[in-house]
């Protein structure tokens, strides 16, 4: 079963982290981080989807402001998903659910150069699994302006992705498109499969402003263009009263735009801070979305840090989306159809908390580290779908459990 690869996300993360740190040092310390995330999405009808996601990252300065970074991450996925997206009252959603398991890996490495008032970095990532391969190159730059009170950052990434698909060259029409049944022959010369391509360009400018000694704000945007195969090759959608079940068929071109604003405000009397984020999103598939996020951080004693979080996301559906019942009774609105939950009108709510243990032996000369941190996090993600005929309506919520350990030398 194909998983989603997003190696280009990491470089953009890095530059935003750099841009968001108004008081950072020009020379970053050597750091190693290990993180393990468990994602569990129970189903009312079938086996739950479980993902175990380990991450290892290391970074170190090599002198002269130059730093190196490398990392590895993986996804071990198991569960069951409906092969055919159709009305919930029909038999397809339950009986055609197929069990799957897969393993995805990604490695990345990069170089950075930091000076007192800015820096640049470049990185490469490669991800692979049975039916998906991805190469990604990224470049970032950030500059401090006006006595370090502003940070202007720009990140760009390009992906070359390869997707395994069923060979539908002989299909007489769109309604006869066959779904991929197995990844066994992927990326071979077998005639039953073909390799599709997907190119992704992403640009993310942002501007951070240290507004007062207690307030940092940031605004920015994301522009992303995807050109190539974007459907789930395994998924079928039940179309029309005659019961045709062609492969999911999504447009091959998508432009995605987002603007966001974030802020962090300190409450020193409580040894706490609050962080808020708002985002507006629109794309060329007519998906519109709004997201709000609130975090509250509070130190407990000398070594404990508690974080509480609430997040809400709401979106409209893609122009070619219909629920499982409407695809059968009305047919698709055009030449495209999907059974993807992320393209349906929906909302979700995320609540959770994290407890971190911090160790900073600043006065102990014998200490071999500068800072050590261990933390554990739990979040509950609740989906609010438009109807029981929406994709994955049998999975109303998900658990996210995470543990991490990091040390800085």
């Amino acid at each position, binding site marked *: 079963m194909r998983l989603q690869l997003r190696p280009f996300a990491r470089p953009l993360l890095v530059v935003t982290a750099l841009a968001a740190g108004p008081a950072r040092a020009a020379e970053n310390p050597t750091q190693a981080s290990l993180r393990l995330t468990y994602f569990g999405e129970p189903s009312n009808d079938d086996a739950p989807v479980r993902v175990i996601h380990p991450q290892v990252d290391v970074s170190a300065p090599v002198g002269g402001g130059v730093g190196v970074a490398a990392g590895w991450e993986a996804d071990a996925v198991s569960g069951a998903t409906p092969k055919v997206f159709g009305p919930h009252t029909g038999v397809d959603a339950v009986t055609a659910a197929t069990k799957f398991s897969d393993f995805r890996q990604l490695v990345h490495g990069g170089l950075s150069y930091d000076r007192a008032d800015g820096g640049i970095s470049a990185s490469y990532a490669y991800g692979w699994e049975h039916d998906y391969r991805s190469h990604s190159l990224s470049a970032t730059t950030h500059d401090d302006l006006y006595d370090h009170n502003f940070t202007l950052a720009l990140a760009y990434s390009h992906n070359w992705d390869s997707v395994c698909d069923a060979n539908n060259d002989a299909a007489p029409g769109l309604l006869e498109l066959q779904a991929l049944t197995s990844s066994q022959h992927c990326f071979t010369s077998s005639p039953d499969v073909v390799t599709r391509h997907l190119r992704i360009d992403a640009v993310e400018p942002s501007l951070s402003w240290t507004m007062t000694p207690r307030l940092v704000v940031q605004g920015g945007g994301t522009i992303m263009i995807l050109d190539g195969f974007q459907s789930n090759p395994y998924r079928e959608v039940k179309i029309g009263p005659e019961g045709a079940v062609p492969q999911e068929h999504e447009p091959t071109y998508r432009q995605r735009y987002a603007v966001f604003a974030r802020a962090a405000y300190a409450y020193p009397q409580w040894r706490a801070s609050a962080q808020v984020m708002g985002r507006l999103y629109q794309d060329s598939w007519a998906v519109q*979305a709004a997201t709000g996020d609130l975090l509250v951080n509070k130190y407990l004693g000398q070594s404990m840090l508690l974080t509480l979080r609430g997040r809400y996301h709401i979106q409209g559906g893609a122009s070619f989306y219909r629920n499982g019942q409407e695809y059968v009774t009305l047919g698709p609105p055009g030449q495209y159809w999907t059974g993807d939950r992320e393209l349906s009108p929906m909302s979700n709510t995320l609540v959770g908390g994290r407890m971190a243990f911090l160790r900073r032996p600043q006065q102990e000369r014998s200490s071999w580290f500068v800072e050590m941190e261990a933390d554990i996090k739990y979040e509950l993600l609740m989906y609010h779908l438009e109807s029981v005929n929406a994709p994955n309506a049998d999975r109303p919520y998900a658990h996210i459990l995470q543990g991490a350990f990091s040390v800085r030398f």
Partner: protein
Amino acid sequence: MHCLCIFRSGPSKGPAPPAMSSRGQSPRSLTRSWLLVVALALGSGGCAASKWTVRPHQRELLADRIMQLDAEPQERAAEDHVLSNREGAVGGNGTSGGGCGCN
């Protein structure tokens, strides 16, 4: 925040301005007046700008990890990996993503 502008440097110690003529200000006086206006404007602008400038010694709170918008890039990457597969939107978290969102 202290404003270190020319307005706090005390009264001018320069030569006294010329006396006004009965028909108004002399050209030299006008020039000085305009210079004063410009200096006032620049000075007040400087004060306004410095009001929004956070100096290094005022960054103690900002340097704390709980004030970093992305204190944990690795955690953000993991979260983006989860959410971007389950929502139709990307961006805004310092991250980007795309693709099919399978599973």
